[in-house]
C-alpha cells in the first residue's frame, strides 16, 4: 500500500489535528472555569461541531490557543501544553497540572484519515471531557472565587513539568495513531498540594494570609468583568506574584478576585512614596484612584492593563523597582512619571500624602529613616532588633526614601518609638517597625502592620458599614442572654434528642 498520504488526506489530517488541538484547549479551560458545563445534543448535524461533539468555543481561549500555536501544528518535538495553576488572593501561585498534546514518531500508515482518525479523535475528546473532571484540580476549580482563582497558560514547544512539585502523577487520556505520527494526550498533575509560594521575594514561609475584606470590599463582584483577558504568557522562569493579573492574564474563571493582591499593594504603595526607586511610575492622578483612605481600591487597581509592562512585576529584588508595583499599580500609574525627584516634597494636595498623613501614626517600634530601601535586606525578620547596620528602614519599603536626605532621621535600633517627623512627608510607618510576629521584612508584612494600624484608628471601613450583618450581629448579641435562658429551660428536650441520635 502506498505509504504516502494523498494530498487530500494530508490536508484533512492537518485540519483535524489543528481543530483537535483547539478543541482540547477549550475542553480543558472550560473544565476549569468552575462551572458545570452543559451543551445540547442535536440530531441534525451542524457544520461547526467538530468531531460531532458540542463543545463551545470561548473566543478568548481560541485566540490564545491560536496565538500559542502561531500557525504551527503539534508535531514531533512540538507539543502543545495547557498549564493550569492556582493563584490566591495574596498573590501566591502554584501550578496544578499540565495537559500535554504530543506527537511521537510511531506512524500508522494504514489508518483511514477521514474516518477512523476522525472518529478516534472524537472518542479522545470524550475521554478528555471525562478525565478533566477527575483530576484534583477540578474540585479546586469548582470552589474558586474569592480566595483563589484558577489560571491557564498555553504554550507550545517543550513540555515543562518542573513546576508541579515532587511526585507528580501522570494520567494518559488516550492515543490516536495517524499516518504521520501518534497523537498522545496526557495530564501531569501535582499531588502535593501544600501551598508553596513562589514569589521571588518570599524566601521563607508564606506570610500569613490576610483576607482582603479587612481592607476593601470583596473584590470578586467588581472584578468579574475584567478577568478573562488575554493570556499571560509567563516565561517558565518568570515569577510573578502579579504579572498574572496583568493585561496578558488569561484567567479561566468567570468569577474574579483579582484585585486582592493589587489592593494590598496599592495600600502599601500609598505608604511609600512613589519616589521610591523609581520604577514604580506612580503618579498623582493615578494615586488618586487607588488610595482612598477607606482602602476601597476595589477593582480600580487591578484593571489588567499593564501599561508599563515589565515594571508591574513584583520583583522586589530590584532595588530600583518598587516592591509594591503590582498590577494594582496599573491602576495607580498612568505614565512613567517619576516621582522620585519629588521625593519628600510632595505637595499636601498629593493624595498619597494626604493618605499618608491620615494614616500616619507614630506607634511603637517606629524608627525613622530616610535611607533608601535596599531590597537585598528585605527578608530579615525582626530586623528592627538587629544592630543598626541593618537599617531597618531600609528594609521597609514603606518608608520613603527621600531623594536627597535633608532630614536625616536617626536610625533607631531599639524598639522604642520615635517621633517621626518628618521630612515632612512620609513618616515612618508603624508597620515597618512594628514588625508583627512572623512577618517578614518585605512588602507583605505591611498588610499585617497596616491592619494593626487601621485597627488602632479605624476609619469607617466601607465593607463593614455596608454589611447589614454587623448590625444584625449586634442584635444577635443582645438577644443571646434570652436565648440562653430558653435553651436552659429546655435542656431536657435537648438531652433526649441527643440520646435518640445515638
Amino acid at each position, binding site marked *: 500500500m502506498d505509504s504516502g498520504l494523498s494530498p487530500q488526506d494530508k490536508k484533512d489530517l492537518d485540519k483535524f489535528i489543528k481543530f483537535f488541538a483547539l478543541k482540547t484547549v477549550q475542553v480543558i479551560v472550560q473544565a476549569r472555569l468552575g462551572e*458545570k*458545563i*452543559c*451543551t*445540547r*445534543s*442535536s*440530531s*441534525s*448535524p*451542524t457544520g461547526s*461541531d467538530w468531531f*460531532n*461533539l*458540542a463543545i463551545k468555543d470561548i473566543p478568548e481561549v481560541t485566540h490564545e490557543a491560536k496565538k500559542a500555536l502561531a500557525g504551527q501544528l503539534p508535531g514531533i518535538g512540538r507539543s502543545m501544553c495547557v498549564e493550569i495553576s492556582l493563584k490566591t488572593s495574596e498573590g501566591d501561585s502554584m501550578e496544578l497540572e499540565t495537559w500535554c498534546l504530543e506527537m511521537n514518531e510511531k506512524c500508522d500508515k494504514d489508518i483511514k484519515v477521514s*474516518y477512523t482518525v476522525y472518529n*478516534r479523535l472524537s*472518542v*479522545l475528546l*470524550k*475521554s478528555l*471531557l*471525562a*478525565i478533566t*473532571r*477527575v*483530576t484534583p484540580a*477540578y*474540585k479546586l476549580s*469548582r470552589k474558586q472565587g474569592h480566595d483563589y482563582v484558577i489560571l491557564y497558560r498555553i504554550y507550545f514547544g517543550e513540555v515543562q513539568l518542573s513546576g508541579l512539585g515532587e511526585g507528580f502523577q501522570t*494520567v*494518559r*487520556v*488516550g*492515543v*490516536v495513531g495517524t499516518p504521520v505520527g501518534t497523537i498522545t494526550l496526557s495530564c501531569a498533575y501535582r499531588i502535593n498540594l501544600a501551598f508553596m509560594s513562589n514569589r521571588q521575594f518570599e524566601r521563607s514561609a508564606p506570610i500569613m494570609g490576610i483576607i482582603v475584606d479587612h481592607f476593601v470590599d470583596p473584590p470578586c463582584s467588581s472584578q468579574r468583568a475584567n478577568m478573562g483577558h488575554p493570556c499571560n504568557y509567563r516565561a517558565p522562569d518568570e515569577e510573578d506574584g502579579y504579572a498574572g493579573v496583568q493585561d496578558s492574564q488569561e484567567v479561566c474563571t468567570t468569577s474574579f478576585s483579582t484585585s486582592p493582591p493589587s489592593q494590598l499593594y496599592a495600600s502599601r504603595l500609598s505608604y511609600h512614596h512613589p519616589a521610591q526607586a523609581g520604577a514604580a511610575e506612580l503618579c498623582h492622578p493615578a494615586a488618586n484612584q487607588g488610595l482612598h483612605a477607606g482602602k476601597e481600591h476595589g477593582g480600580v487597581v487591578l484593571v489588567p492593563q499593564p501599561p508599563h509592562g515589565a515594571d508591574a512585576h513584583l520583583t522586589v529584588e530590584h532595588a530600583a523597582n518598587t516592591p509594591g508595583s503590582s498590577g494594582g499599580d496599573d491602576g495607580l500609574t498612568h505614565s512613567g512619571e517619576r516621582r522620585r525627584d519629588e521625593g519628600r516634597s510632595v505637595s499636601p494636595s498629593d493624595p498619597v500624602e494626604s493618605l499618608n498623613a491620615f494614616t500616619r501614626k507614630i506607634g511603637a517600634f517606629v524608627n525613622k529613616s530616610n535611607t533608601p530601601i535596599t531590597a537585598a535586606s528585605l527578608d530579615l525578620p525582626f530586623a528592627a532588633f538587629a544592630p543598626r547596620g541593618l537599617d531597618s528602614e531600609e528594609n521597609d519599603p514603606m518608608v520613603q526614601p527621600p531623594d536627597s536626605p535633608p532630614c536625616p532621621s536617626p536610625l533607631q535600633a531599639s524598639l522604642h518609638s520615635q517621633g517621626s517627623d518628618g521630612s515632612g512627608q512620609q513618616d515612618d510607618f508603624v508597620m515597618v517597625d512594628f514588625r508583627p510576629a512572623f512577618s517578614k521584612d518585605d512588602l507583605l508584612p505591611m498588610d499585617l502592620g497596616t491592619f494593626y494600624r487601621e485597627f488602632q484608628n479605624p476609619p469607617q471601613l466601607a465593607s463593614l458599614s455596608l454589611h447589614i450583618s454587623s448590625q444584625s450581629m449586634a442584635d444577635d448579641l443582645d438577644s443571646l442572654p434570652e436565648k440562653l435562658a430558653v435553651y436552659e429551660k429546655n435542656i431536657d428536650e435537648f438531652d433526649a434528642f441527643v440520646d435518640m441520635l445515638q
Partner: protein
Amino acid sequence: MNCRSEVLEVTVEARQVEEAMLALLHTILLHRSSGKFHYKKEGTYSIGTVGTLDIDCDFIDFTFVRVSSEELDRGIRRAVSEFKDALSISGSDGMGQISLEFYQKKKSRWPFSDECIPWEVWSIKVNVVNLANEQERQICREKVGEKLGEKVINVVEVINRHEYLPKMPTQSEVDNVFDTSLKDVQPYLYKITYQITDTLGTSVSTTMRRLIKDTLAL
C-alpha cells in the same frame, strides 16, 4: 470475534450505589454513543452532534460527564434503580454486579430469531457496606469519589486502546449495530443486566434467566 470483557469493582454505601452506577455507566456510554446518523445517497452519511452535561453527585464527592440526552438517561436510571432495589432487598451487606453489554444483532433466517452477539461487556461489581457514623460517611464520600475517578481512568484506558468496534453499518444495517430509537443520540446497541449475590456467595439467577430469555426471544 471475541467479546471484550472488563470488570470494575467498587465498594460503596447503600445510598451511593445509584450515583456510582450512573457515573460509571454514563461514562462508558459517553464513549459509546454517537450522534444520529443521517444517511444520504451513495451510502454516505452525516452524524449529528452529541452534547454533554456535568452531573454532580449528592452522596459522593464526584462529578461525571454524561451524554446530553434525557431519553438515554431515563433508560439508564431505570436499570440502575432496579439494581439498587434488588440490592437493598437482598440485605444490608449485599453484593451485586451490574453489566453493560454492547452487542450486535445478526439477522437469522426464519424461524430463528436474531442473534445478539456481544462485542464488549462491562461488569461493575458492587460491594455495599454499612457505616456506623457520620464521620465515616464523610470519609467514604471522599474515598468513593477518588475510587470512581480511578475507575473512570480505567474505562478511558480500555476504550482508548481502540480495539474492536463494529463496522459502520449501511443504512439497512444500522439497527443491527446502533440503537436508533432515541431521537437525539445514537448509542451502540446495549443492554443492562444485573445479578445479586447473596451473602453466601451464590448468585441469584436473575440475570441467567434474562439472558436465556433473550437468546430464545422471538
